[in-house]
Structure formats: structure tokens, C-alpha cells
């Protein structure tokens, strides 16, 4: 397709990469936190719950700013990490971190809702068959919540494709490194007459999101066919 310039193609590729890794890396902690919130009983549960929802409640710029403060080179998290050679500043990994954090509440909610509807009687049955808590989770709960995990992943992915405020504030907009589709779209919208160019990128965004959505729907249908029908 030659109606997108090379920089725009770069933005598309980068957005896909960022959204993909943001989703993949937030899945394990997302499942863990969702499980803790759904089934755990511990002090500070509400604090964890609040923390997870924070990126939803705060304007994205604030989240981006907090990320900058925390993960910047002198930040309380950034400084020790940079000693280990891990740096998010101005890198695509930072964009992925921002996207992951912004999508985290959506992912956790979806997974948590699924966990809450798994019948504890089945988990009990697995326990009587010798499965420890870990194995009950791995062999019964996890497979049964796959549709919820998929829903959470697709929400996180879609959010990551659209995330702008936190990303640009945290890792700015460096073509080829941190310029995602939304940053590019935003740039076009800032200048008079840029709507046409923005529209092209919006269409690309929508196409990617629709592809991801439909794929996830097909997968979900397969999964629920497998599970469907009750015990």
C-alpha cells in the first residue's frame, strides 16, 4: 500500500509491536492480580484494587508524568533498573510499559470476572483428586477462564493501540522508536488541514483492531464450544 509513507508504516509496525508486547507481558501479572482480587483474602486487597484501577481514573497525562517520575533516569525505580541495564526512557519498551499499565485495569477486570464465575465445586473436585492450589488453578481454573483471559487480552491490546497521552508524556515521540500510530495521528490533527492524513492512519488503526477483534471472537467461540454445556 503506497498511500502510507515509510514513516507511517514504521508507526504501524511499532504500534503493533508495542501493543503485542504490552499485552503479552501484562498477562501473567494480570492473571495473578485478578486471581488475588477474585479469591484472595488479605490486608491491603482494596489498596491493590485501587492501584490497579488508578490508570483508568487519572488523566493519561498524569499517568505518563508519574511514569516519568518513577521510571525516569533519576526516578526511584528508573535509577536501580538502569544499573541493571534496563531502561525504558525513549524506547519502545517504555511505550509498551505505558500501554501495559493503561490497559492493566481492563485486563484484570475481565480476568477477575471470569475467575469469579468458575464454580468452586469443580475446584473442590480437583482438590480431592490430589491437585494442590497451584495445580487446581493450572488445570481447572485457568483453562476455564481462557475466554476471560482472551477478552482481557483483546481489551489490553485495543487500549494499547489507542494509547496516546501516557505514552507521549513518558517516552515522547521519536519516529521509529516511540512514535506509535496515535502519536502520528495526534501530530496530524495539530495542524490546520491535517485531518486527511490523520484519517488515513485512523483507518489503519481500525483495520488492525477489527482484525484482532474478529480473531479473538473466533478463538473465543472455539474455546467456549469446548467448555460449553456445563459439567
Amino acid at each position, binding site marked *: 500500500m503506497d498511500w502510507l509513507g515509510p514513516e507511517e508504516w514504521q508507526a504501524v509496525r511499532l504500534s503493533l509491536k508495542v501493543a503485542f508486547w504490552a499485552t503479552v507481558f501484562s498477562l501473567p501479572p494480570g492473571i495473578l492480580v485478578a486471581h488475588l482480587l477474585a479469591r484472595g483474602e488479605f490486608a491491603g486487597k482494596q489498596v491493590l484494587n485501587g492501584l490497579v484501577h488508578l490508570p483508568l481514573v487519572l488523566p493519561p497525562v498524569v499517568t505518563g508524568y508519574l511514569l516519568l*517520575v518513577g521510571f525516569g533516569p533519576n526516578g526511584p525505580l528508573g535509577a536501580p533498573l538502569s544499573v541493571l541495564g534496563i531502561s525504558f526512557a525513549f524506547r519502545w519498551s517504555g511505550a509498551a510499559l505505558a500501554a501495559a499499565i493503561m490497559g492493566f485495569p481492563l485486563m484484570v477486570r475481565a480476568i477477575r470476572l471470569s475467575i469469579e464465575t468458575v464454580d468452586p465445586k469443580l475446584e473442590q473436585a480437583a482438590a480431592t483428586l490430589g491437585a494442590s492450589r497451584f495445580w487446581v488453578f493450572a488445570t481447572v481454573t485457568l483453562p476455564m477462564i481462557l475466554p476471560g483471559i482472551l477478552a482481557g487480552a483483546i481489551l489490553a491490546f485495543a487500549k494499547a493501540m489507542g494509547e496516546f497521552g501516557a505514552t*507521549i508524556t513518558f*517516552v*515522547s515521540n*521519536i519516529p521509529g522508536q516511540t512514535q506509535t500510530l496515535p502519536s502520528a495521528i*495526534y501530530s496530524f490533527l*495539530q495542524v*490546520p488541514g*491535517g485531518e486527511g492524513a490523520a484519517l488515513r492512519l485512523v483507518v489503519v488503526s481500525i483495520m488492525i483492531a477489527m482484525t484482532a477483534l474478529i480473531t479473538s471472537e473466533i478463538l473465543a467461540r472455539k474455546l467456549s464450544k469446548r467448555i460449553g454445556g456445563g459439567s
Partner: protein
Amino acid sequence: AEQVTVFAAASMKTALEKIIDDFEKASGIDVTLSVAGSSVLARQIEYGAPADVFISANSDWMDHLENAGRISGESRVDLVGNTLVLIGREGGQVEVSENLNLLQLLGSGRLAMALVEAVPAGIYGKAALTSLGLWDDVQTKVAQVDNVRAALALVAQGAAPIGIVYASDAHADPRVVVLGQFPKMSHPPIHYPAAVVTGRMTNGALSFLNYLQSQPARAIFGAQGFQVLED
């Protein structure tokens, strides 16, 4: 009492609030101030926002509205100007000229700027660097953000060693120092035009626009770091 709604570039918020306070006391007219990015406000006015007076951070959007017939061209005035400065976290004064060794200042870091194709401060900054012959050196080292304040934050947080922002933004932040000022001739004049919206030519709107050009108003603008234009 009479009502005037003012749409103004976000960077002028503090100054305008003070001016409005004085104006309201003096005139008995109620002024409502809505601040956002110039592009956002301009589009809203284009689509029929109930604004009486528009103050933009760049001339492009004002030109755009004037061409579209959405503001009254005869009411248009340039209120204040601004200058571009190079900021850092520490270090002595430098002279911003063709001889400036930006790369040395940058080290392995990045140059924080507003979006160089879209946001006025970025556009002016790029123009200045280009005319000084420095742009090619740093082009790949620029971290662009969606507004000047975010560029300032990058420097203030130590994520970027130096940045280019307006003098009005730099002067209030104790964490940054102004390393040098860009020569006036290195970029197009930075003006904040104001105008009355078409069809809103009321007494209140006009008297507010006049007040903005009054001596007390100029003093306030000046105190906030804006450059008071010579008549």
C-alpha cells in the same frame, strides 16, 4: 451581567486568570475562560463553539479561522510574543548560535522539544535550529512531546539533559536553568494573536479584547514571562 466566553491557549491560563479578575472588577462583565490546545479550540470554534474571543498560541490556527470566516479579521491583534530558550538542569550560560556544540551538551541524551511538525513551540524550535544549521546534527536525537510543558518536564525530571521551550514556561520552574536564548531572527516571530469570533462582536467581547492590550494587562503578561509587544 454581560457574559464573555474566552477560548485561550492553555499556556496563558495563569496570566489570563489574573487579567480576567481585574477586568471583571473593573467592568462588571462576567468572563468565562476555557483553556486547551490551540488546535482543539480552533476546531471547536470552527464547529460552532459558543466562544466570543479566541486567543491562539500561533498564527496558523488564527489564519485558518480567518480564512474560514469564523473570526472577525478586523478585530485580530497580536497580544504578546514569546522567545525560545534552551534549558538544562545545570550548567553555565551558552551562546545559542551557529557555533553552539549541541551534540556535546546532549551527550548520549536527547533534546526535549514539542512536536516539531505540529505544536507551535516545536515548529519554531525546528525553524530556529534549521536556520542556525544545527538541525541536521540533532534531528535524530529529538524527543518530541505533545506540548511545551511536557518537554519541560522531561528536562526537569532528568530524562533529557536539554530542551527547547518558551521563556514563559522556563522561568517558573526552579529545577531547570535557562542555558541560552535563541536569537530573535532565527525563527519566525512568536505571536499570540487574539480576535473576536464572527457573530460575537458584542460590547463585552470588544472591551475585553481592548483590556487585554491595556497597560495593566501587559504588566501581568510580562510578569508571567511573555514578551510585551511594542505598539
